[in-house]
């Protein structure tokens, strides 16, 4: 199966089966889904936090670049979002 292509200018949402939250016991952000848990430590959790149904990939990158001026984070953010999209954690709104 080839990886699905992530469109960069459409708003991103969490898949409806998922729940994203901070877990004190794990000291990490986590994604919850039926019978499972995915830990999203560090920057992955911070990126996921920005997925709110209104921001697109481009907007998320722009936002983070503004937060951390001078840091080249574009590729890392893109990698993570593509991973999350490929895993079906997130989807683009039409």
């Amino acid at each position: 199966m080839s990886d699905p292509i992530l469109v960069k200018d459409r708003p991103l949402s969490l898949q409806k089966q998922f729940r994203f939250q901070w877990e004190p016991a794990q000291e990490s952000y986590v994604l919850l889904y039926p019978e499972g848990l995915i830990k999203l430590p560090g920057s992955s959790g911070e990126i996921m936090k920005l997925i709110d149904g209104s921001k697109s990939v481009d907007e998320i990158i722009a936002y983070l670049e503004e937060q951390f001026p001078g840091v080249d984070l574009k590729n890392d953010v893109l990698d993570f979002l593509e991973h999350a999209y490929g895993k079906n954690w997130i989807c683009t709104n039409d």
Partner: protein
Amino acid sequence: MEKIGSVPTIKPKGPLWVNAEITYKCPLHCVFCYNPLDYASTFKSELSTDDWLKVFRQSRDLGAVQLGISGGEPLMRDDVEIMVSEASQMGYYVNLLTSGIGLTEKRISAFKEGGLGQIQLSFQDSTKELNDFLSSTKTFELKSKVAKLIKEHDYPMVLNVVLHRLNIDHMDQILEMAEAMGADHVELANSQYYAWALKNRSYLMPSEEQLRKAEETTNRFREKIGNKMKLYFIVPDYYANRPKACMNGWGSVFLNVAPDGLALPCHEARMLPGLTFPNVRDHDMEWIWNESPAFNAYRGESWMKEPCRSCDDRAKDFGGCRCQAFQLTGDATNTDPVCDKSEHHHIITEQVELAQKPQPPAADIKPIIFYRDDKNSKALIAENS
């Protein structure tokens, strides 16, 4: 589907998964039911709504994130709505496991509003219902109605079908039924032999030939249907030579609370001798999980005997299932006899051999089968007291 226990990055300090068996009452009589044989003894001592909310709160504080609401048939209670909404406000991902009986438009709307994460619909294929299903449309219609409700409320349609000797030859029909119902995920799990299913084991265990055919049918169907419906086929562990990593280890991620408040490291543990399982009425969850002797009894590896004690696989399968070891060898600290390194493995191979012999058709053996019903449960309680 990835299960909790398979995520390697987590070092659980507390339970991750709480299963609330809120009642053993059930309108069905499945011959493979894994509720305890004496389940009828819990009817008068069921926990109250407040008791349950306390259990959820305290377990959540320990780090639990997944909550299963099951039974019996959980919808026999009228406070599931409160449990769902309170638990999901606490931060749980809430799963409801139901046969669908009692799932009305009104109730499912309340669950959705309360934040219920998913519904697993089990196809309670007792032989009786199977016959109903195969010979009339009654059951199918009820299930289809419920399936439609589930889809209308924007939940994926997760269907659990328990397979056994008496229904496994009807894989074609079962899969067609699942497709007609619009199922997204179908778990085709062979029954495990505990409690009622152990009593009925010789009638339930499929032959190798049956298993092979059923798996072939499943694969053919999978090819035909593609990604639309995901199929999971699970063979009985008696046909394996290594045991399942039961509960991902005793007291490691899973905590079961029975209708009468007994806290257990797995659904079946109540049967184990020599352990006093704590009751949530008498203790808080923190003590139960961390301190109680019962939850520590088979935690880790120190309880293990040979061949597990020096086996390289002990961190992988934890020596298998304590209940199966006890049920079949009489000692819960023995290696699960499914393992071919166990000196008791012949118990398994003998059963498997028996299962290869032809048996009379289902209709003829019906009177010998033990239906999971209140009358049989009370009779078994009387027999043992």
